[in-house]
């Protein structure tokens, strides 16, 4: 066996849903049978060619995959160092990577005979993707969204309603993604027979982190092939933003065993990773704990109470991170950094001006890190960043942050 297969980073999780010490199935007994059922169905689907044929067909004709791998020429020139490529998942139907995963879970839900779909959402992108696919298949859709996020992501709330979903504003806690996930779990415990919980990131109890990763891995698989076509080799560095970590896991996973590819995840640094915890950098500023069904790095106080994160980006505003990232962090296979709101806004503007692409605030974080490191790298160093969402949903937030009055703009 070649050496790089003996030490594969791609074999997790184990049968208990663990990536090292992270992951697991920390749920109430009521949900346990449901999760085992889901795991069994997913295991069956995984090796069923019909399942993947259906996915491939819809990815191509409904989502618009493969997404392009795009050489950002002017950005590269402007930064004056490494060669920068963007994996354009913002061009997907519904405007983000979220739909890659939703399609997989909804096809699975249909196979399981479930008729009622619930989801949590932060930025609203996962909610929109879920509402979209539910509309396509005629399924009932209920989306839990923190009241604070309902306020700051209004366009997505309207889109979900147009698509026929019920949007439930969640007022518990501080009204963000974490609280929406709690309420979605409460719904699931109450409606066990007909309901499928479509989780939007690589978190939750096993098998969600592995399943969502497998669906999002289409990003990295395509990028690998496309990079070979464009450059005849693999990238030197791959970079993605991390809320729960699904777009990042999707890009990273197919590269985990390519030891020469360095992997960087970018967390939301909010106002700065400080004692006041005004950030969402779970790996940089948190410690291991148990929340939402898995063990992972969490923002928490000394008593193990979960802290509310802070970020300008609703999609990154989550106090945890997918367990596989915690593991990759601890073993050192991936590096995790943080980017502040201000840095992300600068990158947002830079991307608009140099490439004619209005990015979502989430990938703006990844781009900000690219902007930080690219100038010091040689021109033959290839960076691939995940442009995982477009910024239409964020224009109001950005206008406010930049002090523009949208009503007066002409």
């Amino acid at each position: 066996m070649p050496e790089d297969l003996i030490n594969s980073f791609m074999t997790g999780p184990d049968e208990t849903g663990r990536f090292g010490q992270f992951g697991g199935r920390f749920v109430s007994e009521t949900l346990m049978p449901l999760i085992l059922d889901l795991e069994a169905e997913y295991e069956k689907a995984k090796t069923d060619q019909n399942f993947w044929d259906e996915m491939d067909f819809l990815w191509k004709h409904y989502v618009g995959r493969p997404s392009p791998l795009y050489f950002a020429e002017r950005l590269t020139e402007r930064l004056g160092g490494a060669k920068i490529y963007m994996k354009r998942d913002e061009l997907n139907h519904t405007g983000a990577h979220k739909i890659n995963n939703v399609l997989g879970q909804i096809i699975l839900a249909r196979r399981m005979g479930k008729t009622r779909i619930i989801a949590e959402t932060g930025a609203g992108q996962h909610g929109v993707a879920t509402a979209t696919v539910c509309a396509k298949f005629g399924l009932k859709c209920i989306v839990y969204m923190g009241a604070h996020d309902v306020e700051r992501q209004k366009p997505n709330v309207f889109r979900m309603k147009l698509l026929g979903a019920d949007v439930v504003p969640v007022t518990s806690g501080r009204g963000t993604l974490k609280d929406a996930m709690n309420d979605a779990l409460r719904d699931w415990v109450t409606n066990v027979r007909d309901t499928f919980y479509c989780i939007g990131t690589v978190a939750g109890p096993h098998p969600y982190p592995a399943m969502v990763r497998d669906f999002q891995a289409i990003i990295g698989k395509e990028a690998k092939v496309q990079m070979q076509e464009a450059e005849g080799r693999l990238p030197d560095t791959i970079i993605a933003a991390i809320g729960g970590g699904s777009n990042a896991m999707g890009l990273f996973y197919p590269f985990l065993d390519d030891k020469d590819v360095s992997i960087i995840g970018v967390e939301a640094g909010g106002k700065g990773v400080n004692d006041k915890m005004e950030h969402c950098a779970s790996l940089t500023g948190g410690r291991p704990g148990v929340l939402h069904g898995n063990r992972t790095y969490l923002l928490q106080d000394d008593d193990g109470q979960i802290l509310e994160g802070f970020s300008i980006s609703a999609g990154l505003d989550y106090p945890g991170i997918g367990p596989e990232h915690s593991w990759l962090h601890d073993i050192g296979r991936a590096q995790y950094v943080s980017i502040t709101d201000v840095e992300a806004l600068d990158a947002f503007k830079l991307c608009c001006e140099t490439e004619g692409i209005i990015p979502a605030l989430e990938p703006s974080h990844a781009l900000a890190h690219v902007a930080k490191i690219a100038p010091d790298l040689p021109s033959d160093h290839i960076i691939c960043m995940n442009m995982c969402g477009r910024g239409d949903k964020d224009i109001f937030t950005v206008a406010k942050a930049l002090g523009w009055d949208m009503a007066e703009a002409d």
Partner: protein
Amino acid sequence: MTRIDAKFASLKANGKKAFVAYVMAGDPDYETSLEIVKGLPGAGVDVIELGLPFTDPMADGATIQLAGQRALAQGQTLVKTLELARRFRETDDTTPIVLMGYYNPIFSHGVDRFLNDAKAAGIDGLIVVDLPPEEDDELCRPAQAAGLNFIRLATPTTDEKRLPKVLQNTSGFVYYVSITGITGAANAVATDVGPEVARIKSATDLPVIVGFGIKTPEASQKIAGVADGAVVGSAIVDLIGQGKSPAQVLAFVKTLSDGAHAA
């Protein structure tokens, strides 16, 4: 033999059903909460379920969520919750205390250190909602080894195939969750619960206590009638949330325990 085992043995000898009351530690504040807990045995409570506040109680409805938030806002912590139990033990050495909550505060404190501290405080058993049998190595086995009961929840979704797994490392009693849902939501229905309790009892010698959705003395009596006892939480916590005095809360608890004891 823990205080829990002793209590159920004596109830059985007297042909009585158990009444279990849930309150959140530190709600509405530490001193008031301690006063209520100290009054529970006098109000006919056989087993005290002491809620350990957590920011993200995923199996709880609004009533208990808010109780946890009130307690946390008053500075309640795991350490203070154990301290509250210890102070209760100064006045009562027989009424069992079951600590009920979520895993993260315990994991954060450190499992071994927690088990030592909990024993020293006079805690008898644990109900940790987000630790199913699949995660027994985390806390269940160490707790049993330390002489604490680990009480498992069985639910309407726990089918025949799964029941033995749920019962395997359970001790003290089995807590049957009467509904699929969160605390304080739907009403428990005795005609649904009876056969389920019988199903569980045919597989274990442990007492089977029923909770979730029991809100009145009548329901307490009816449900205790088809099981070994009944648990009431949200209905009591609601009164505390309304700002009722300890005396008023305990008077209500007495009507609930009278109900269960009349079964």
